[in-house]
């Protein structure tokens, strides 16, 4: 299985994303809340370039005790990647689509050695 460099750990600030060309494939590396996550750059919907989309906090709509709603908010604990083709939104931490966990991204294996990140495809 070929292995590709994804740069140094120190190249990534929290919230960063880098899309790596890995031969015929592409992988998105994300650093969220101090952890690294890696997903193949193929949306589960139409194989769109999901990892090249906007990174946005998940939108939620709090329901009050009386079951009414007044506003939407961003969930600070959940960061999504949005496929730029059609808007499919996935949790960067789980790879699950926001609205249907059966729709999910394909995980890429990463290892960190001596401060350098490597991707296996």
């Amino acid at each position: 299985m070929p292995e590709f460099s994804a740069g140094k750990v120190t190249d990534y600030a929290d919230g960063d994303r880098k899309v790596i060309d890995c031969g015929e494939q592409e992988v998105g590396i994300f650093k969220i809340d101090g952890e690294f996550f890696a997903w193949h750059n193929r949306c589960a919907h139409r194989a769109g370039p999901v990892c090249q989309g906007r990174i946005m906090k998940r939108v939620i709509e709090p329901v009050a005790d009386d079951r009414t709603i007044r506003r939407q908010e961003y969930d600070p604990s959940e960061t999504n990647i949005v496929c730029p083709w059609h808007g499919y939104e996935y949790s960067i931490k789980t790879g699950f689509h926001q609205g249907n966990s059966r729709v999910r991204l394909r995980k890429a294996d990463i290892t960190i050695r001596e401060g350098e990140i490597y991707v296996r495809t």
Partner: protein
Amino acid sequence: MNIQGRIGPQYSPIQEISVHTDTRDILAHARRNAIRRGLQDWFVCDIDAHHVETVSWKEIVTYIEDPVVRDNAMRFQAERLGAPPYGLNGDLGLRYQSVGGRIPHQDGQREIVEETGVHRDVTLTRRAMDSLGIDNMVVFPTPMLFLGMHPQPEMEVWLGGAYNRWLIDRILSEDERIKSLVYLPFNTPNEAERTVEELGDKKGVIGFCVTSTRHKPVHHNDYMRLYSMIEATGKPLAFHAGYHWQDPSLATVNRFLGMHALGFVWCNMVHMTNWILNGIPERFPKLKALWVESGLAWVPFLMQRLDDQYLMRPSEAPQLKRMPSEYMNHNCFYTTQPMETTHPKALEITLEMIRAETQLMFSSDWPHYDFDLPQEICDLPFLTEQAKRNILGLNAARIFNLDPTPVKKLIAS
């Protein structure tokens, strides 16, 4: 272990797709997937794609026939700070289509175009065709889809005519692969007839288009001469769907998602119901009616509803000699997008009821947020290869009299 990255990480040149990203980069995966499926050797025709005509509105208004309105429009576009497109109505929903910027290509294509020999829209259309794997692409306007709801019917005549002449002059003349169904100012029937007479034979004009968002009955006697003229040309008449949030039937829908899902179907359901029950296919048996951008799931629903009701009340539709569904899958044609694919069994039955092998034509709707790709047809497991070839291009070649020789430049980047 084979470490490919000894020379350092190979970062993709595009880290985040934005409104400035080149169409060919946005659609790089589409091109790769089309190559993998061998579409270079298939004739692929896209019956419904779009350009944003308002970007060229300064040019378009110079084609308005009425000299006073033309002057007013040109002066407005030149002098008004941040001028919106003169004379054009629109729908506020247009502002929501990109889901708050999550789908950038819906908001704008601000990519660099260095080619100066042709209009920018020609270059953008070529880039889309050669990325999606398309041989012929039919382009429609975008905000003008709402023009049928304009309070001034004469404005539909002026702007529709200006757009048609601009399109023929600046876009269709530049590339044989780009086609159009000319805009008919349907709210003014005699002007629609004039459009057929004057523009029906122009280069690249392969049919006629009624934007479906309007409150005119398609079965009114005022339109019979128009339908006769179109039938005589042998070219199809398309009803291109759209939404309109001011439609009272949608007044309670507060989410764009819901309004869009219903609105794009509702207008064509109403027109189709009138089309069939008033016997238009019996009166114009050679008129090819094409139903565009409503998706497909509505068709079997309406077939079942009309068939059931017709058997109980045949005296109310005395012109019909067959079941409504038989007119819908013999006299009518459909475009695929936005094809509902989340329930595969339902889609299979839908395509069977439509008689997709002869009645269905691929459409992408690029660059809108719910665009489809040719690969979706290739990947349907229940279709024969011949059916896929028909849907992707050969049905269009037959119905629109197009040369089915593949001419696209589907090469790896």
